[in-house]
């Protein structure tokens, strides 16, 4: 980004540095706000359908355009032309505002993602925290939607959705905390730079926690209770139709890509690859390609998970978050902190081993605790049964 600005200033002398910066920012945000969503939605809906189909041993969309690639655009046109019905006593303002907020929240995450070497919207000092904070806006949007549609089920759905989102935001924060501990900074750019060894290998447990929590945060697959067809009527956006529903849909997919992007940045080393470097245009392009490939891989994993796992009940879902992921996160953070401070740790290699060890220990500890609890609850259940008859 800086290189681009400098290039601009050199080529167009009348431009002052600030003005050049402004132009570059406008261009990049334009791309992010307009081009990226469309591309992402189209591409990844197609991909999703194809992957699911493959998993369910069927072909998937192949009618619209060669190999069905244009399926996304077909959906888009359909959405545009559908009639948009607003319930009579709905709270019109809030009702309309909800989808906007949902989309904005999803897009804003990209501001911080280091898409390519040197190319990053705003490398905030507290980038990671920004990502989490923006995620919180999604809940507000859900509540607004649920409340304004004056529909009992919508409200109930909104409550459940928010409960789930809240429950899984904490593990995300704790996983990110572990990463920040290891990386020593919150700037995403710095984290990418710190990942000589991708953190996935250094902090495997944190990686898994983040992956699972992100899936739940997006509201997909095993945790897709929100808009599951067979559940309570597609969650809080039951009263939405037409383009508003489309934007919820776009929001969801943007959120999917954003989360995947975050995961790749934090754990897979973002744009780092064999030749990626910010000095040459080629290097930048290579970096970008690496970033997209990795993100797609993560998304593929999510789709794969969606295809295979069954849906989890709401109370199991919440218990899983509060009684397993959050304690695990806490233990993880403590373990990483202690591991880093061990006297012997001085060379990077040793740090890696220490952190790996910490993660393993944390996992084992959690396994033991869970098994104990499980056995106790099982015996309690048996006693109850024995008692009953």
């Amino acid at each position, binding site marked *: 980004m800086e290189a681009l600005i400098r290039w601009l200033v050199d080529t167009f002398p009348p431009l002052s540095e*600030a003005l050049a910066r402004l132009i570059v920012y406008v261009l990049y945000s334009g791309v992010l706000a307009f081009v990226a969503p469309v591309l992402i939605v189209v591409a990844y809906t197609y991909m999703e359908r194809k992957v699911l189909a493959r998993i369910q041993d069927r072909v998937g969309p192949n009618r619209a355009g060669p190999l069905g690639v244009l399926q996304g655009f077909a959906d888009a046109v359909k959405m545009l032309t559908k009639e948009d019905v607003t319930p009579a006593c709905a709270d019109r303002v809030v009702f309309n505002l909800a989808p906007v907020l949902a989309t904005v929240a999803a897009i804003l995450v990209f501001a911080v993602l280091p898409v390519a070497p040197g190319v990053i919207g705003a490398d905030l000092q*507290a980038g990671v*925290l920004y990502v989490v904070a923006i995620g*919180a806006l999604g809940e507000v949007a859900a509540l607004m939607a649920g409340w304004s549609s004056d529909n009992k089920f919508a409200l109930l759905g909104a409550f459940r959705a928010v409960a789930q989102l809240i429950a899984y935001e904490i593990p995300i924060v704790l996983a990110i905390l572990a990463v920040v501990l290891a990386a020593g*900074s919150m700037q995403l750019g710095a984290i990418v730079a710190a990942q000589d060894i991708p953190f996935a290998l250094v902090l495997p447990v944190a990686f898994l926690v983040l992956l699972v929590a992100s899936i739940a945060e997006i509201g997909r697959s095993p945790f897709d209770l929100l808009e599951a067809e067979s559940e309570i009527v597609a969650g809080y956006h039951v009263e939405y139709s037409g383009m508003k529903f489309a934007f919820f849909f776009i929001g969801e997919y943007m959120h999917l890509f954003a989360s995947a992007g975050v995961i790749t940045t934090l754990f897979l080393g973002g744009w780092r690859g064999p030749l990626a470097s910010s000095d040459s245009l080629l290097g930048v392009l290579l970096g970008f390609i690496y970033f997209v490939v990795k993100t797609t891989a993560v998304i593929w994993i999510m789709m794969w998970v969606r295809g295979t796992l069954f849906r989890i009940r709401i109370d199991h879902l919440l218990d899983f978050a509060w009684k397993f992921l959050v304690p695990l996160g806490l233990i993880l953070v403590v373990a990483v902190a202690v591991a880093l401070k061990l006297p012997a740790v001085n060379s990077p290699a040793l740090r890696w081993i220490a952190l790996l060890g910490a993660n393993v220990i944390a996992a084992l500890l959690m396994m033991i605790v869970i098994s104990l609890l499980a056995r106790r609850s099982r015996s309690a259940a048996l006693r109850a049964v024995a008692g009953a008859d």
Partner: protein
Amino acid sequence: MAIEQALQIFVFVILTLMTLGGGLAVVTSRNLFHAALSLILSLAGVVGYYVLLDAGFLAIVQLLIYIGAISILILFSIMLTRGLMTPRQVQRNEQWWIAALVVFLTFVVLIVALWQMVWPIADDEALRTPNVAISQLGEALVGPYAIPFEIISVLLLVALVGAIVLARETENNQGSHAEAGSSE
């Protein structure tokens, strides 16, 4: 630099509109849900303020905690304590005009005090480089401010326990309430 300042002033004006407008909405709006949402709007404005005041981390923390957690809590409690769409009630109690008067006077007095006071503005050089690195902040939190750091955790624990006791205690009432609700 002129553009820079003009831009800042412009942004300041917008943010002020957001904050004060939101505030007024919070105070006057009939529908409580709208009040809560305008509160969120006002808090977002405050986030912008912090950005303008070069307190980046603070802005994000405000965003995260206030908008992310507290407003959710408020929205939850609003929805939990009132039936959906209760009929419009006049939101102002009978003593509102006294309050208005007193508030206005307080505001006037505060403004006069502000304008009279000569604030020891730091010298220009310091003003220019305000940014405080987050690691410094971290060291401060654990170093000199270790005790408040621990106390805040205790405070949160206490608040949580208290809230749970109050909320949970309603568990058995809830049971009765549910019947009451359904029996109506």
